[in-house]
């Protein structure tokens, strides 16, 4: 599928949306509450895009509505001075009663204000991960475990301790926080640092939303086979057979370095299911090798797709991700300040042009856009 084609899709999608608009008085926290998600990842498209601003906004809004929060990060975040750029960064100040999980090495003075309820045995670079309840509201730094498996375990623990909803701060290049294995839904954050101008930021965001919203395959039979395939943890082909489709596991665990060998076996297949990472090299190889327009690549989930531009092929996932909204931060540390209204509008238009309209918010100025968003998206 070319970009032109997908834009055409976007045009089509926009029409019904005009009939039924989202209630425009809603803000981000309304969306989150209505979604019913028990765990929510906040993912930045780059460093310093204002993800923590979004986090803080959600923390104060959701807790002011009486919800008990759980907070964790998928990497290092919330430091007062950004460790990468040396620029000041907002820290997280959870209200009293919030459950948090962070490494003991970064707690410092804040340890006094936390009622410790669990200590994990595995030690990371900042020490063991501690789960506790904020007795008083003080700024803290969040450092979480690096792997999706541990992250998912701690999210479950926070919920078990009594959090109504767990917010996961996804760090730079740690999209794993948004994996459907870890969280129920995700919010995507971008900001002035993501591009030279509003156009570039919007295009980048459109691509990210497109990527993270990769759907399941339309055919129920192929969906079922793909689910089986990712459990096998080996690359599988789906071929057409007399009575539908069959699964053909091939002896490759990864597509890395095996692109040509896999595609040689794929001659008459309709899909290839990749349980690990789907790389740019692989989708390019598929694009140039396979002539059948129906042939598609199925990944485990959107966070295991590592492409940096829209591939000219059909891309599906086994476990789809729910992207609730996008947020933007019009100012960056380099003192670039875009017009909030224009930025929000441009991004909303670009996203719906890519075929996946989403509500867009600037949580600082309160600017928002529901362009192209129908009520159905929230379901």
């Amino acid at each position: 599928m070319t970009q032109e084609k997908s834009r055409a899709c976007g045009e089509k999608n926009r029409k019904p949306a005009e009939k039924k608009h989202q209630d425009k008085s809603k803000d981000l926290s309304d969306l989150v509450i209505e979604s019913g998600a028990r765990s929510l990842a906040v993912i930045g498209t780059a460093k310093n895009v204002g993800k923590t601003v979004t986090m803080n906004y959600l923390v104060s809004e959701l807790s002011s509505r009486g919800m008990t929060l759980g907070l964790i990060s998928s990497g290092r975040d919330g430091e007062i001075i950004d460790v990468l750029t040396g620029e000041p960064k907002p820290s997280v100040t959870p209200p009293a009663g919030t459950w948090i999980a962070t490494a003991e090495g970064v707690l410092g003075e804040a340890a006094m204000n936390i009622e410790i309820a669990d200590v994990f045995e595995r030690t990371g670079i900042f020490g063991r991960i501690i789960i506790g309840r904020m007795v008083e509201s003080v700024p803290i730094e969040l450092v979480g475990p690096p792997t999706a498996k541990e992250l998912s375990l701690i999210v479950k623990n926070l919920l078990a301790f009594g959090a109504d909803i767990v917010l996961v701060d996804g760090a730079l290049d740690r999209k794993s926080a948004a994996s459907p294995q870890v969280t129920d839904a995700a919010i995507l954050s971008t900001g002035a640092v993501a591009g030279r101008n509003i156009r570039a930021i919007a295009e980048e965001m459109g691509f990210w939303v497109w990527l993270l919203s990769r759907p399941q395959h339309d055919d129920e039979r192929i969906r079922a086979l793909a689910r089986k395939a990712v459990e096998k943890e080996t690359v599988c082909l789906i071929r057409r057979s007399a009575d539908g489709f069959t699964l053909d596991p091939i002896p490759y665990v990864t597509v890395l370095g095996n692109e040509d060998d896999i595609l040689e076996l794929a001659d008459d297949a309709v899909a290839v299911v990749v349980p690990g990472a789907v790389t740019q090299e692989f989708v390019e190889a598929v694009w140039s090798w396979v002539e059948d327009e129906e042939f598609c690549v199925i990944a485990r989930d959107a966070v295991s797709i590592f492409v940096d531009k829209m591939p000219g092929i059909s891309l599906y996932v086994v476990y789809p991700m729910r992207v609730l909204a996008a947020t933007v931060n019009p100012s960056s540390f380099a003192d670039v300040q875009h017009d909030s209204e224009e930025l929000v509008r441009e991004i909303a238009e670009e996203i719906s042009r890519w075929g996946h309209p989403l509500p867009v918010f600037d949580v600082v100025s309160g600017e928002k856009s529901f362009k192209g968003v129908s009520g159905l998206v929230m379901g």
Partner: protein
Amino acid sequence: MNEESEARIARVAKTTRKERAVLTPPSAREKLGFAAVWDRVTPRSAMGRRVKFRAKPFLPGMEDDLDKEFDALETIVGLWSESPQIFTEFMGILSNSKDPFYAITLLNDGKPLPHAEMFIVAHLCFTVNRVLALMTDEKLIGQTAVLWPEKVVPPSLYEVEKHLLLGSQGQPTFYVSDGYSEQLASVRKERKQKEKELREEMAKEAAKAEELIGRRPGLREEIAIRRRDYDTIEKARLMPELAETRETLTHVHFKLKPTRDAVKIEREINRLRQKESELEEQVLIDLSKKVAEHLPEIQRAAKAIGELDFLICKAELAKTMNGVRPRIVRIAWEPHAGKPDQDGESSKTPVPLKVCEAVHPLVKEEVEARGGKYQPISMEVDSTVSVITGPNMGGKTVALATIGLCATMVQWGLMAPCGYIEMGLYDFIHFQAQEEETPGLSSFAAEIVSLKQPLSRLDERGLILLDEVGRGTNPSQGLSLCAALLSFYLENDRTSSHVIVTTHYHGLADMLQVPHWQVRGLTTDLSLDSPQKEFAEISDTWANGTDGIQWLYRHMDYSLQKVGPDTPTPHDALLIARVLGINKEIIEKAEFFYKASQRNGEVKI
């Protein structure tokens, strides 16, 4: 010298003795299969892993300790089959327990515990409570009073708990709550009051800003006003309550400016926070001192929980391997009391080694995985030297490893995978299996080098398992060497050691007049004289010779029987080679040579 110090010296003596390897050569651990068995003992808690890590084999003189260990293990196994539920709960508690080792180290050094370690000690109290509650739960273990092994019953940590669990309800949590210090409580109260005052003070300002921008800003929030709202910006600039923070291309940013009173209150709050922080530090120091007073109980509790975990693992292993408790026979002669008597009389107290229906668990798993039926072996070793003979593929080496593994497991306090076992403890177990190629050493040289180890420990009681000694050189000299080695042991054994040797050499048992055990061997009418048709039937289904192996598995009786010393060694090598698919002509020629050599001892082609 009091009793305690005597016991201590005895303990030290034991530890130095342990430094000599119990399993020799080092490869024996792997080759006997003990490494794999020991790996299956996987404690769930860090405390249990520590106990396992420190576990040492029981050596001669420690029979009472070993019997106590088996008493405990037997109690656990018994309780498990009576009330399995209790053990499911134990496993959950153990998996959730925390590692208190660092906290114990800090307390030992007299250092204060940080928050996380306080929590871990509190959690240990919680774990101890749950374990103790389960141990005495009448609903779970029935009305009969159960005597839990002493070492797994942790002391109550009530005295520690009462300090640590202030303010937490039911669940173990830790927080320096107001209850720890009145002074802290009053400082906190004062600080909170000041914070309230600050909020009230700032709320007045926020209310004024609300009039201007249409919503109430947060206390530390930046208010961004669009540049084209000139009026609002001008008004904001004129308001004493707002301070301009920065300007960008599109917006002007403001923040609430604290009033003079607010600044004063803020300064006061900072002072109180500092005071609070110092007081909290002090609470941790005082609390650590109180906890440290109970350090011995904490250590005992951690040890007991670890022992419980380790025992549960051993009981699990015993259950999966159908292990039995061994009968440990005391050795009348104490091998380390000094040099044994030269006349050798007092030292020759024979202690037999009896194993019935013994199983090598790893071989059994492999046999059953390929659909075969595993045959246990029985053997009674009552003489210094015993000889095992049997056909090729008859499992002589496995028999040797099975006996070695059972004895090793007993020495490490594990139930042995057999129907019955009776033994005295050994100082060392030497298992000389067929070595893999060692660079620079021929297999014969490697064997001889390895033999020096047991020979250098003649004053210790050993179980010496030799697999086909002398096979690496010419048969006549190999036999002579083997016979000489065994007769050396017969003459020089003062410690009731046991040497078991497998061999193909004919007449070795007869030559030395020692017990002779034989693998029952092939149970088939097939012989080299059988018609070609019968071999063809086996060979018809051959694929790469594996079907020949399957045929051997089915027709081999692996059990051991005691035979007369002069019973001939089975001569099935040619038949087995035939079954495994060597050309008929070669076998016929080999048979011709064999018969000729039997007649006149020489072969001429």
